[in-house]
């Protein structure tokens, strides 16, 4: 055994960690990404050299195919579609971990060995289960985000009982696998794989669109975990460490996102938020708040142009309308007139962590203008106009002062503390969670109805004409 390979692996690991470290600031983040790339080149070169050419054509085929798909997809994907993209990547990693387990198992089973090493059998079965759950769950998350299937929670009676039974079945089959040292009947193994895939599908089905930031983060951490455990299976420190880094990252994001909604992870996963029995029809019937003031783009343009500080509050609606470039154009017009423009970004605005930031970065908004929850809330009391663009629940003051509200306690952007609030909204339909937003009825709030992009463009034109 030569010493070069482990030393090179160590160098790769150091580069990965340094790469993640340099993501601590937008100014150094690209350098960080390059370091991580260099680490990957080193690590993969070592692995490829170690194969000694065995199965080279299959490996080459996989790398060329995957590389081509990956790069083309990365170049083509729209920034508004990043949540779907990340969901697919999570699924790909989980799927690969599961398939490694399948291949290793079959090679062992056909080889007719006595029994698997306990470390291998435990890690094989655990990484396969988590990988398969992550794979199937990510596919469902992708389908929901891509709107191939409804973003609404899908529920049926006894759902949690079914999931619990499947989970128990998985545990039982997994224990059988380990105790038998991998020599169980092969139907047991395939049933296990199938059950893990089914669980992945079923656990994401009841989760609604607005909860996707949590789910994507969670699936990210699952995939990291699957990769780390696969590292035990093939005895690779490299996989263990990389998997652990990703698992830690996904876990931090999951906790952040849950906290930003003031809900426990269990509540996100099991409560099918926003599908409340009959709550939606009721909200629709009541028609939501009636007492709202509607204004024209010209009125808003005057208000904006003569303000000294304007805060934009983007939400998923901005992403749907692809309005980020229009928003930036409006900001440019205002800045030309000496208005200070800032952006308030709620952690769960959009469909994944940091979604709004990427969209605004795409539109060339300097990142210094993007404020997080606390900084933004310090600014609202001195803000002349808060312009809410396609955000709803994250601005709902009921979270602060209506204990009976389902979102009570959720940290929100205090837009109502600004002197004037303008809400760009397509219609008076309530938000994802089906909760009325008392913000709309406040005396300092006015509504500008219409498509977010069209409204912002109209504002830009009106400001220009002043």
């Amino acid at each position, binding site marked *: 055994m030569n010493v070069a390979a482990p030393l090179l692996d160590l160098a790769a690991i150091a580069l990965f960690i340094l790469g993640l470290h340099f993501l601590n600031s937008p100014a150094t983040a690209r350098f960080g990404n390059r370091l991580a790339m260099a680490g990957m080149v080193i690590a993969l070169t070592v692995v490829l050299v170690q194969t000694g050419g065995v199965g080279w054509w299959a490996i080459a085929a996989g790398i060329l195919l995957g590389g081509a798909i990956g790069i083309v997809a990365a170049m083509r994907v729209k920034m508004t579609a990043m949540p779907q993209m990340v969901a697919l990547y999570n699924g790909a990693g989980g799927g690969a971990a599961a398939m490694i387990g399948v291949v290793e198992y079959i090679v062992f089973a056909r080889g007719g060995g006595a029994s698997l090493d306990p470390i291998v059998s435990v890690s094989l079965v655990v990484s396969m289960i988590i990988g398969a759950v992550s794979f199937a769950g990510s596919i469902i998350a992708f389908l929901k985000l891509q709107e191939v299937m409804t973003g609404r929670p899908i529920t049926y009676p006894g759902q949690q009982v079914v999931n619990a039974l499947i989970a128990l079945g998985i545990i039982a089959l997994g224990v059988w696998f380990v105790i038998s040292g991998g020599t169980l009947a092969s139907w047991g193994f395939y049933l296990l794989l199938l059950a893990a895939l089914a669980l992945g599908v079923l656990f994401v089905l009841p989760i609604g669109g607005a909860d996707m930031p949590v789910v994507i983060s969670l699936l990210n951490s699952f995939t990291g975990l699957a990769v780390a455990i696969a590292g035990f299976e093939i005895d690779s420190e490299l996989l263990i460490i990389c998997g652990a880094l990703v698992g830690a990252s996904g876990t931090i994001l999951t906790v952040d996102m849950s906290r930003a909604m003031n809900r426990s992870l269990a509540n996100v996963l099991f409560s099918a938020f926003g599908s409340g029995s009959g709550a939606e029809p009721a909200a629709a019937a009541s028609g939501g708040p009636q007492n709202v003031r509607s204004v024209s783009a010209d009125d808003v343009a005057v208000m904006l142009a003569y303000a000294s500080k304007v805060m934009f509050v983007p939400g998923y609606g901005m992403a749907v309308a692809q309005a980020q470039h229009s928003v930036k154009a409006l900001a440019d017009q205002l800045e030309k007139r000496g208005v200070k423009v800032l952006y308030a970004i709620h952690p769960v605005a959009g469909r994944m*962590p940091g979604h709004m930031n990427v969209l605004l970065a795409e539109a060339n908004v300097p990142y210094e203008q993007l404020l997080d929850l606390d900084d933004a809330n310090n600014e609202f009391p001195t803000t002349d106009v808060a312009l809410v663009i396609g955000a709803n629940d994250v601005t709902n003051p009921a979270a602060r002062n209506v204990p009976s509200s389902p979102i009570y306690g959720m940290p929100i952007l205090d837009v109502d503390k600004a002197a004037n609030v303008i809400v760009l909204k397509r219609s008076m339909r309530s938000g994802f969670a089906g909760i009325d937003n008392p913000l709309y009825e406040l005396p300092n709030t006015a509504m500008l109805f219409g498509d977010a992009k069209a409204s912002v463009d109209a504002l830009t034109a009106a400001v220009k004409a002043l």
Partner: protein
Amino acid sequence: MTDVSHLITLLTILVLAIFVGFEVISKVPTTLHTPLMSATNAIHGIVVAGAIVATVSLFGSGNSEIALTIVAIAAVTLGAINVFGGFAVTERMLQMFRRKEGGK
């Protein structure tokens, strides 16, 4: 027979790596959370190394069953998608983040 001291070494590495991960990642600002996710997607693409090892053990075992070979190639493909796609999309996103002066 399993080598317990080796297992302990691997577990030690796992636990330490988790701590390092928490330390490093908790300093990433919210504005970079999407690039962070895609970068970690690329890093867990290291699973492709596992897929390559599995492919080698498949070919080494002399098993040339077509279905199994396809599974092995698919595993390598998925891992490679993560590596190449993850880094490329992260790079693409990060080059959009700019300061006020540099942006115009």
